[in-house]
């Protein structure tokens, strides 16, 4: 997943450096305040650990071997900010000294793995482990999920970065200047490898190390377990099948339901959303006048722009304009779409929950 | 009677609920060369770190040159810099102390942190390298140094500050015989220089050369003290505190058996 030089245009690289910079800055400030003098030895030694662990050949189910990145265990032990810096440092050394990953693309690699990876891993771990005792099995599962998710999010970001290259950067003859594959190829190609191999490797490393730490050095897990129940508490060991604490997120669900009810308010907005015009809107005279009216009367491009025309037909939504065609009532259509969308997400969460619980029961 | 450098009164220190030191009271005078004897885990390293102001006593008082040695005092930069210059600690594991990219940088680290001017630093580094015969290692990275070389660089990195008090944790541990004897020569050479030297060791053979006074520790307590001849002659004490060992060996006469001994006693 380490992106070498030459795959991303300088513009993309610059944008990703610029996006990473505030995270680095905030991380450094927060860490300096909290750790003060201990910052340097802790980060250096941990970055060295991450670097070395990246070289381990981990055997995966199915007979393959894979490499982990270590960002999830780093987040779990050090917390997200220190992890951001430690992994960035390891990536820097890999890139500059060992040529693993590019120098112009270092910003991108840090953003995908060190920053997004650390944050996703940390929040997933916290969300799934809740207030469990440090020694509970649930934390091991939480670490595994955090590892898997963080790597796949990082891979998805990389895939998106690759995928937009041919869209934006071509030479005069139309040949792609950088990564040559559009999103519809880049995303499945990247995700295939990570959903199966790299994600599992990371999951195993994170879960395995947390289990090992629970045995030998439980104090190392306490930094990211504020308010963890004391070891004697039976709450977490006897936790019923749901891995996600449904009780805890009841207020969230109530809030979501309220929001759902209010979605039809969107119809009150006059005209179409600014910037969300279709080729049809830009071809129709009446619509064009409306657009000009809300755009400070700037001149519109004559006709429909080429790019818009070409790209708008790539994907046709199942429910265009948020209303299935058979419904007459617009507000009901809005509400239904919102419910459908949130329902899909909740369904995915429940499915994940069930799968993990089933594995825990059998494992 | 020379002024006391360190005075400890009923000092205790625990680490993760394990009592590393209990009720330690002792005095170390200026210019004295003291050996801390005891098996591994008897509290010698902890005591050295207490003396170096890295750990602070949970109870009891520690005094350095008649002033209290507490965490609060180290907040004052002037005191801290002065202390760090006057007291140096050589750790048991040199890798812990060699964290800079090259030997030159390592020696320069201490003076740099104490804000010496760059020219003085360069001068002193060169001189210290020459003094310890490691000038040829100036640009070497630590991973390309042998065990003995690492030890010498570690010692050099502390000596460059010209401390009046030197604390050494197992100075001859894990060294090959030649490096061991070089280190012992170095320590012996500090006799009568006015430097206060405190060495924690369980290498009984070298104690007489490097120390004028011994403190014996067992399980975090100070159990005996006295000049080397007295302490080393007390076989009972040595056996009790784990400093003596017994294993099969041969005498010059050809007899093979096992009994408690120290290796230079094979005349009989």
């Amino acid at each position, binding site marked *: 997943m380490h992106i070498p*030089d030459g795959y991303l*245009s*300088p513009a993309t*690289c610059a944008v990703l450096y610029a996006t990473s910079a505030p995270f680095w800055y905030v991380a450094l400030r927060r860490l*300096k305040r909290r750790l003060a*003098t201990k*910052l*340097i*030895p802790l980060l*250096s*030694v941990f*970055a060295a*650990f991450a*670097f*070395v662990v990246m070289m*381990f*050949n981990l*055997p995966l189910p199915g007979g393959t071997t894979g490499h982990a990145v270590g960002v999830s265990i780093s987040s779990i*032990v050090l917390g997200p900010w220190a992890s951001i810096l430690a992994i960035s*440092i390891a990536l820097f*050394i890999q890139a*500059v*000294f060992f*040529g693993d990953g590019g*120098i*112009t693309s270092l910003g991108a690699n840090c953003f995908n793995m060190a920053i997004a990876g650390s944050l996703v891993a940390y929040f997933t771990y916290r969300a799934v482990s809740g207030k469990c005792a440090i020694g509970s099995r649930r934390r091991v599962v939480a670490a595994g999920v955090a590892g898997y998710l963080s790597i796949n999010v990082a891979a998805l970001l990389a895939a998106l970065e690759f995928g937009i290259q*041919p869209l934006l950067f071509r030479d005069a*003859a139309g040949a*792609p*200047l950088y*990564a*040559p*594959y559009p999103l519809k*190829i880049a995303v499945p190609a990247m995700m295939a490898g990570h959903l199966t191999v790299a994600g599992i490797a990371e999951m195993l*490393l994170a879960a395995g*190390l947390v289990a*090992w730490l629970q045995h030998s050095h439980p104090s*190392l897990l306490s930094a990211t377990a504020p308010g963890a129940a004391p070891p004697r508490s039976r709450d977490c060991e006897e936790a019923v099948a749901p891995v996600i604490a449904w009780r805890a997120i009841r207020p969230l669900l109530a809030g979501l339901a309220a929001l759902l009810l209010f979605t039809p308010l969107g119809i009150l907005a006059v005209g179409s959303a600014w910037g969300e015009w279709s080729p049809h809107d830009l071809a129709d005279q009446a619509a064009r006048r409306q657009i000009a009216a809300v755009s400070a009367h700037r001149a519109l491009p004559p006709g429909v722009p080429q790019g818009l025309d070409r790209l708008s037909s790539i994907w046709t939504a199942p429910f265009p304009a948020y209303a299935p065609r058979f419904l007459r009532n617009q507000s009901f259509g809005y509400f239904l779409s919102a419910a459908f969308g949130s329902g899909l997400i909740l369904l995915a969460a429940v499915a994940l929950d069930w799968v993990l619980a089933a594995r825990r029961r059998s494992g | 009677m020379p002024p006391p450098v360190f005075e400890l009164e009923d000092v205790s220190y625990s680490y993760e609920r394990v009592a590393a030191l209990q009720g330690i009271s002792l005095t170390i005078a200026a210019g004295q060369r003291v050996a801390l004897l005891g098996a591994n885990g008897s509290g010698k390293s902890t005591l050295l770190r207490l003396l170096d102001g*890295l750990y602070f006593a949970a109870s009891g008082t520690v005094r350095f040159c008649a002033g209290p040695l507490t965490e609060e005092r180290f907040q004052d*930069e002037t005191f*801290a810099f002065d202390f*760090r*210059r006057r007291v140096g600690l050589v*750790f048991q594991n040199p890798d*812990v*102390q*060699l*964290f800079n*990219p*090259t030997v030159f*940088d390592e020696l*320069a680290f*201490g003076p740099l*942190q104490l*804000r010496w001017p760059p020219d003085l630093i360069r001068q002193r580094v060169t001189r210290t390298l020459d003094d310890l015969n490691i000038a040829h290692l100036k*640009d070497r*990275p630590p*991973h*390309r140094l042998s065990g003995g070389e690492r030890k010498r660089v570690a010692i050099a*990195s502390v000596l460059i500050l010209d401390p009046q008090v030197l604390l050494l944790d197992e100075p001859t541990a894990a060294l090959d015989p030649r490096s061991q004897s070089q280190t012992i020569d170095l320590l012996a050479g500090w006799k009568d220089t006015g430097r206060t030297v405190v060495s924690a060791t369980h290498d009984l053979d070298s104690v007489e050369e490097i120390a004028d006074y011994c403190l014996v520790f067992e399980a975090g307590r100070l159990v005996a003290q006295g000049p080397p001849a007295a302490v080393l002659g007390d076989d009972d004490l040595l056996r009790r505190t784990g400093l003596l060992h017994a294993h099969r060996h041969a005498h010059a006469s050809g007899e093979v058996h096992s009994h408690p001994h120290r290796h230079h006693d094979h005349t009989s």
Partner: protein
Amino acid sequence: MRPNRVIEGSLRSLLGVIERTLESEELARRSGVLQRLDPRVKLLGFLGLIVATAASRRLEVIAAVFALTLVLAMLSQVPLGTLLIRVWAGAFAFTGLIALPALFLTPGRPVARLPLLGWVVTAQGFRGAVYLISRVETTATLSMLLVLCTPWAHVLKALRVLRVPVVLVVTLGMTYRYILLTIAAAEEMFESRRSRMVGRLAAKDGRRLAMATAGVLLSKTMQLSGDVYLAMQSRGFRGEVYVLDEFRMRPGDWGWLALFCALAAAALWMGH
């Protein structure tokens, strides 16, 4: 009996790192053109060339920078064989594999047809693949050359010229140092396991071995961090670090800096 992949594979990667380190230390000591330049000049110059290569829209410019890199390598006594093994072969295999499907998948003007499968190669696909491969090779060669001809400690200190904060420079130096120490520890653990092994390691045991090794390394890591912290404090560290400025620009260095700037600017302009 097939050697076990966890142990063998991990050891191979770990030892590879050590080899790279030794090799680059050896090359950095030779007295070639690049070795004698001020590290800051090299850093800025090479960065300029890398950016120019990344930004170029013309293959000729990329080729020219590559040729220049080869000349610099030869003038610095870096054997081309080393570059071949360290950079070119690997990058070509990896990126070549990635670029291969692009020959057929990029829409455009067809120029060739595969005999058996009938897949069509487009001109745009071909050009795209060439862009990618040439860019990757050139930038990789540039960054490798910079590091092969400069001691690591100097590369780090030169970063100060880019306004990298001192705390990061010091941390990077310590990280590099402790990478080598951690590798030695990991190596020892794997080799001791290998010497005690009879027969193949089942996947489950392999996982446990990897986890145990990583776990022991992790606890050693945390222990080390605590000890190093004490050692730093013992020599006066209180949170702010300082480094010694040891680079002095000589007249030749200014000349080379100007040359690098001119070349990078030319490449940027012509590649536009």
